[in-house]
Every structure is written in C-alpha cells, then in structure tokens.
C-alpha cells in the first residue's frame, strides 16, 4: 500500500465526506494507508497488544535460542537439573527477583521457563504458518470466486463447503500419525518427524482458509460492481490488473483483520490439539502439551499449570487486541453513537447532529480512541 492508487484516494475522500462528518478534517489529504496507520496508532488497546506481543515474541525467540542459534537463558527445554527448593518458582515481584528457576521446575527438574519459552515459540510459529497459508489460499480462492463468478465460483465455493464440514480434529490426528510414523522412510515422514510443528501448521493452514475465502468473496462481489472497476475495464485493463491493482487494495482491510483473528484462533486450536494429544508431541513441547502433562499436578505444583496457561492467554489476547485495532482502523463506517446525546438531541429537535464534538466534554476527549 505504499503507492495509493487514485481510486483509494478518491474512496478515502468520499468516505470522509459521506460518513465521518465531524472529525473528517483530521484526515484531509491523507491516503487510505496513512489514514489506517493513523487510526491504528491512535488505538490504545491495539498498541498495548502490539507491545505485549513484541515482548513475548522477543523473549520466546531469544531466551532459549531458535534454529540452532543459542539463546541467553542457561537451560533448555530438555535439560534436567537438580531440583532447587523443590522446584518452587524463584521469580518474585516484591522484592523484584529473577532467580535460578524463575517459573520453577517440574518433577524431574526441567526448567519451566525454558519449556514455556520453547512452547511459546512453537505456538507462535504455528500461528504464523496458519495465518499466512490460510490468508494466501483464502485470498486466492475467494478472489477468484468473487471476481469471475459463474462456474469458477460454483466449483470453488462447493470445495469450500466440503472442507468447512470436515472436522479439524480428524486432520490433526492424521498429521500426528504421519509425523509419528518413524518406520516409513519416505521423505515426507522424515520431514514430518523432524519438523512436526511446521507440518502441523501447514495442515491446519490448509483447512483454516475457508472462512477467509467466504469473506473475501463477499468483498469482491460488492467491489466488482463499483464504478472504478467499470472504468478500469473500459480503459482496457486486464483481469489481473483489475484484481491486483484495483480490487485487492480495497479488500485488503477485511483480509488483514480476519487473518489476525484466524491467527488468534490458531493459537487456541494448536494448544487444544496438543492438549488432546494430537498436536505437538513429546519430546518437543508446546503450551497446550505442557498443561496437558501437568494438569494432574495442580495441587502439588500449581506453577506448572499457571505459567503456560498465562502465556497462551497473553499471546491470544494481544493478537485479539491488535486485530480489533486493525478492524477499527480499516472500517471507515465507524461512527460514534451516544445514547445520551442522541436522546438529548431527540428531545430538543433543533439539534440534528447526534454527537457533535462540542456536545459533551469527555466525549470529545475519548473520541480519539476509536
């Protein structure tokens, strides 16, 4: 979106003139990309989510190392070390201390911080793989179906319908079986055995695109009837040019927002599958697997249960907030409604604007957060 097309500018201006009457002046002369960026960075929740996710991401990937690169943390997720203080977490908020095993140790002495970080890594990798694969397939399938209609749409959408009713759990079980079958000497089994997480992510990505495809199709169906598409077609643009230059930039908001939401669902999906024993398998670890392995120990070693769970919630929550911020930023129809001022203006029929900025002090103050 670095080079906004004329349509985008026109659309953006049209949008401000039509639906954002009050604060529209704020966006005067900005491209759609700039408006979106501005609105996103004005969204407190999204910024906090972004910061939290960046923190977790950096911590997870630098602490225990990734892809052979060693990290700064002294243990890794398989090392067994002698139990310190019966494995009780040594981290504390007051006095602020980190200690030998900040998140504690499990029964045989593995460091929980290392295991949690490794699990968070795996979850994030799976999430990114699922998000990118689902986004790509969803955009292509939905775009083709929405743009060309006719038999292309019929075939692609029936395919979507078939995939949407196949239970994800079943596919995950099949993948888990393939990855676990070490005796088979095909290249796939070998690859799956060493990169179980990647294979799981790819397979889940191959089934998670259906919702996206439907949304993108709907978006394309409305956009292809717009005047700027007609204009492009009359001036001789090819189908590919219309799709990539004219329609896709306008549908990208829906796509990005829903990829984010798919990713947050992907985290929960992966952890749930690992919990049920068909996701990531031991000796590798994942956040869901950690909880599954340790749920019996809740009364004796509750920290084994708290930390992985809190990390799942933290990752998922921050992604959800980012997605919410993106949705608010991309949705130009966002308009404020205030029951109170609307009622007031209803009673005093001379006031027609439901929420003018001068109507109430605090309203103007927090309107920046939208």
């Amino acid at each position: 979106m670095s080079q906004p097309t004329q349509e985008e500018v026109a659309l953006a201006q049209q949008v401000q003139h039509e639906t954002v009457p009050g604060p529209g002046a704020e966006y005067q002369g900005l491209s759609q990309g700039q408006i979106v960026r501005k609105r996103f960075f004005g969204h407190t929740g999204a910024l906090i989510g972004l910061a939290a996710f960046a923190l977790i991401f950096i911590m997870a990937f630098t602490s225990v190392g990734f892809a052979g690169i060693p990290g700064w943390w002294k243990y890794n997720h398989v090392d067994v070390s002698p139990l310190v203080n019966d494995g009780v977490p040594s981290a504390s908020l007051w006095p602020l201390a980190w200690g030998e095993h900040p998140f504690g140790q499990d029964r045989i002495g593995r460091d929980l911080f290392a295991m949690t970080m490794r699990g968070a890594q795996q979850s994030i990798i799976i999430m990114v793989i699922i998000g990118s694969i689902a986004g790509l397939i969803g955009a292509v399938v939905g775009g083709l179906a929405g743009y060309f209609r006719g038999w292309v749409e019929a075939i692609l959408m029936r395919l979507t319908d078939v995939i949407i009713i196949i239970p994800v759990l079943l596919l995950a079980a099949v993948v888990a079986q393939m990855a676990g079958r070490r005796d088979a000497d095909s290249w796939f089994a070998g690859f799956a055995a060493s990169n179980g997480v990647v294979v799981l992510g790819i397979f889940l990505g191959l089934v998670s695109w259906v919702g996206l495809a439907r949304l993108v199709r709907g978006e394309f169906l409305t956009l292809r009837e717009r005047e700027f598409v007609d204009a492009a077609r009359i001036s001789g643009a090819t189908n590919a040019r219309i799709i990539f230059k004219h329609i896709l930039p306008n549908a990208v908001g829906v796509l990005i927002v829903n990829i984010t939401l798919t990713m947050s669902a992907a985290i929960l999906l992966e952890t749930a599958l690992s919990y049920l024993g068909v996701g990531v398998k031991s000796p590798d670890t994942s956040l869901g697997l950690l909880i599954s392995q340790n749920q019996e120990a809740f009364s004796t070693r509750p920290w084994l249960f708290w930390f992985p769970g809190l990390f799942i919630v933290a990752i998922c929550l921050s992604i959800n907030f980012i997605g919410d911020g993106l949705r608010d930023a991309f949705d130009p129809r966002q308009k404020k409604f205030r029951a109170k001022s609307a009622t007031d203006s209803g009673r005093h029929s001379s006031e027609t604007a439901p929420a003018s900025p001068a109507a109430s002090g605090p309203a103007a103050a927090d309107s920046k957060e939208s």
Partner: protein
Amino acid sequence: MLSYVVRRLATAALILLGASFLVYLLTASSGDPLADLRASNAPNRQQLMDARSQLLDLDTPAPLRYFKWLGGAAQCLVPFAGTCDLGKSVTGQPITEALGIALVQTLTLVTGATVLAILIGITLGIVTALRQYSALDYGVTFMAFLFFSLPIFWVAVLLKEFGAIGFNNFLRNPVIPLPVSLGTGIVLGVVVAVAAGGEIKRRLISGGVVFALVTAVMVYFSATLWFKNPGLGPVVIGIAGVGMAFAVTTLVSGLKNRKALQASLIVAGLGVVSWFVIQPLLAQATGLMIFLLAIATVLVGVGVGYLMGGYDRGQSMRAAGITAFLVGGLVALDRFMQAWPTYFNNSRVRGRPIATIGAGTPNLQGDYWVLTIDTFTHLILPTVALILVSLASYTRFTRSSMLEIMNMDYIRTARAKGLSERSVIMGHAFRNALIPLATIVAFDIGALIGGAVITESVFSVHGMGFLFLDGITHIDPNPVMGVFLCVAVTAMVFNLIADLAYSALDPRVRIKA
C-alpha cells in the same frame, strides 16, 4: 422458494457425499487399527487380530469399505424402517445405539450452556451498546476479549480446582470470615459504582447500597450456616417477586402502564400464596409434573394479565406471564434448596456435592429433587466453562449489531415522534438488532450436536465429542462417521434454516429462487 430449498438440499447432499468420503479415508489412513494388539503379549494375539480384522472388515481396501458403509447408511434415509445401519465400533457396539446414548449426554451438557450464553451475551451486548465508550463498555469489552482468549481446557482445570474442590472444602464449615465479606462487598460495590453510569452521586449511592446489601447477606449466610441449610422462604420470594414484577414491567411496558404493573404484582403475590399451597404436591414431583406446572404458571400469569387488561392488553399479559414464570422458578429453586441437606448428607455424596467428572453420581438413590440436584451439580462446572468461552462472541456481535441499528434513521424518527426511550430501545432497536443474531444462533445450534470435544474430555462426559475422539484414537472409522454424519446434517439443515429465517425476518433480504 421451494425450488431454492430443493436446490440447496441437493447441493448439501452432494457436499455430504464428498466430505464423508474424505472423512472415511482420512480416518482409515490415520494409522494402524491393530497397533495395540501387535504390541500386546497375549497368547491369543493372532486370534484377536483376526477377530478385529473381521469386525472392521480390514481386508477390504478403505475406499471400497466406504461404499459398503454408505450402503448401510443409505438405509437410514428410509423413514420408520428401522434398518439404519451405521456399522459397529471396535468393541462391537452398533453405532446407532452408541450415538443415541452420546446424543443425550451431549445435549444435556450443551443445551443449558448455550441458552444461558446466548441470554447473557445478548443482555451484555445491548447494555454495552447503549453505554458505548463508558467504563462498563470498556470493562465488558476487555472481559470479552479475555474470555475469547481463554483455552477451555485451562479454564476447566481451574474450575475443577477452585469451583469444585475449593468450594467443597468450604462447605465443610461454611463460615465466611468478616474480611472476606467486607472485601466482596467493596469489590462488588466499586464494580456497580463504575458500571452504573450517570451522576457521581447516583454512582456513589448505588455502589454504597450494593456494598451494604452484599456484606449484610454474606454475614447473614455465614452466621446462619446458610450454605448447609439453604432456603429462600416465602418472605424472600415475596420481596424478590415484587422486584421482578417491577423489573419485568419496566422492560415490557414501562411503569406508566399501571395495569401491567398491577397484573405483575398480583402474579407475584399469587406466587407467594402458591408457595404455601403447593409444597405437599411438590413432595412427589416428577419431571413431567414440573413441566406441566411451569406451563400452568405461565398460563395463570397470562390470564391475570388478560383480566387486568389496560390500554394495551398484550403488554399486561406479557409482563404478567414473564413475572409468573420467574416467580415460579423461585418457588422451584426454594424446593431444590430444601432438598439440598438430603443430597449433601447422602452416603454417595458424602458432603462433597460439586462433582468434577462424569454426568451423575453412580447408584444414587433419591426422589426427583435429589436426582435433579445431582445432575445440576455435575453440569455446573462444564456449563460455566462453556458459557465463559462462548459468551464473548455473542456479546461482541450483539453490541455491534445494536450500535448499527441505533444509528439508523428510523430510530431518530422514533425519538422525534416522542416515544419513550424504553419503547425506542425495546420496541424498535432491540428487535431489529436480533435479526442478524438469528443466523448466528441457528448456526450454533447446528454445531451443538457435535458436542464440545475438549470440555467432554476434561469432564469425562461420554458424549458425541468423546465418541468422536475415541474413534480417532482407535482408528475406528464407524463412530467417527456416525458423529460426522449427525454434525454435518444438522449443521447444513440449520444453515438453510438460518438463511430462510433471515429472509423471513428481514424483508429486504430476498432469496434468489
């Protein structure tokens, strides 16, 4: 219209065929169904393997086996023939039988949770939409995101630990320390003060009232060991009934409709009277009787409303009917509480009522009330877990739908012609905001049958999800196919219903026939 439905059904059948073929192949190819026998050291190993091969027809290749299965499954389409054959599971149980048992378990588990989640979610959504960008809105939004991000298995284990084990320990000596009472009162008071909205004075007053009330009730509970011998009694039912009468009338018709308010109050009074009259009858209750009583209660309420009349007879009837139902619910709740000590001291329960696994205490003897309490105590934790994780989407969806409606021109028109805020919200906005929800609800009901695989596995409920998971782990295609068939058929039917309902509810949407 008819051609649309027929075309949709035909497509659905084709999709079902394709998807079921894929599911069968995937299940069959997901591993070796004889793996556990191969690893065993039993002397009759070969025999067992042969028996299972024969039972599951392993000598036939999977694609052909699918068509054999399809032949049996096709007989299910013949109504009332009783020739439905979905094959047998690895233990030799016919799938149709297993499905029947699992379906009952799943529906008892998920129905209550879904209904409650929808009710609570819609209420929260409406309230937050009406108070957009208030502290309440931000709070609920944050909670919605939080619940949305909770892994259900994690919640379930936490609930087991604190909701069941912790609460059972507390019940052994149900004395609430004074600091806990005060703390709870303060927390709830602050929450209400923040959520109440309006002037500072109003917030402080409502917060203070809630604080005083909560603390007093908790101190009272602690002093009388209420949790050992719970009960409401006619006085509490009377007070609560009057409160409900006012609340329901406010929502349904507004307090200005005096006749509706009087009808509701009369019904609340009748409820207290019935508490005295009905006790001997309730002692020999059955499920059917409770159901009939509930219907009778609502009918009495509607009748009182009809007799009271007023300028809008329909409103009086609705208000009185809803009040009657709620007060009747209180009377039933009181009866359950009376049965609580019996249940609590039952030799099978042994003073630890909230269960963590299963769907009922085995070999429990008792009357209707005790057995129903037993079901409730087993359902409560999975229900809470399911509500928590499914609440968020309903709240968010209702909120955005309601916000969109409140910006419509006809709402401004309704206000401009001088309608009260209540009738603008309840009559014009709320009803229309529910239309898009109809789609979602229909879709979710379709998905209900599939059960909650994870919840069922955490709480050891042997429902549809359990059957499915069990089939997958034993590489046994028949149970998997049975569950898949039920889920897919209901999902597709409800999808169709959702589309039809949408066009029926919103005349702007037309079905292309």
